[in-house]
């Protein structure tokens, strides 16, 4: 199955990637995806287990089972609005 991945802010700069598609096995989880992302982008390895993921615009944990065509975003710590 194919998973759409979106990178933002410093993740986008470090991977030099805004959008990509990753091929995964059926029933793959966010945990599996997290490991694959670090394999594909080794300079993100220091963020391992610190990634926050959203699937189809909703925050999900590492046990979440992905579906074909899911849109997954790596969400950097939020800093919008104002202090």
């Amino acid at each position, binding site marked *: 199955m194919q998973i759409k991945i*979106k990178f*933002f*802010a*410093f993740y986008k700069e470090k991977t030099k990637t805004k959008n990509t598609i990753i091929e995964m096995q059926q029933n793959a989880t966010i945990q599996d995806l997290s490991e694959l992302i670090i394999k594909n982008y080794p300079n993100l390895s*220091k*963020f391992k287990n*610190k990634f926050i993921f*959203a699937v189809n*615009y*909703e*925050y999900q944990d590492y046990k979440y089972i992905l579906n074909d065509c899911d849109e997954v*975003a790596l*969400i*950097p*710590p*939020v*800093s*919008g*609005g*104002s*202090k």
Partner: protein
Amino acid sequence: MIKITFDKLNPELITNSIKNPNNGAVITFLGTTRNYTENRKVLHLEYEAYAPMAEKKLNEIIKYIQKKWDINDIYIAHRLGKVEIGEISLVVSISSPHRKSAFIACEYVIDTLKLTVPIWKKEFFQDESKWVNEPKF
């Protein structure tokens, strides 16, 4: 109403759009960009959003406050892209029959927005630029 935009925000237009005769109170909060952070001079800022998710999360916040407090109308606007120092990056405008619930709801919106809504800020200094909240190791 939600607006995530690269255009300059106009708080007067936003405030007028939610005024109506049922309300005794309209509160408009403006978030403006600061020229110093941790004693370093900031030249300008840039905001980036995951827009469809940001809209979804803002809608959830709006639904929540309308249910919890006595709120008639609400307008949240967030600026994106390059924002000069002193400009408005955020407008939250809330109308209610009574001022107390409008104040409480307004603060709730801003606090929650900063935790759950995927919008990021980059500060540009003389010699470098940095994403706010980028983890340090």
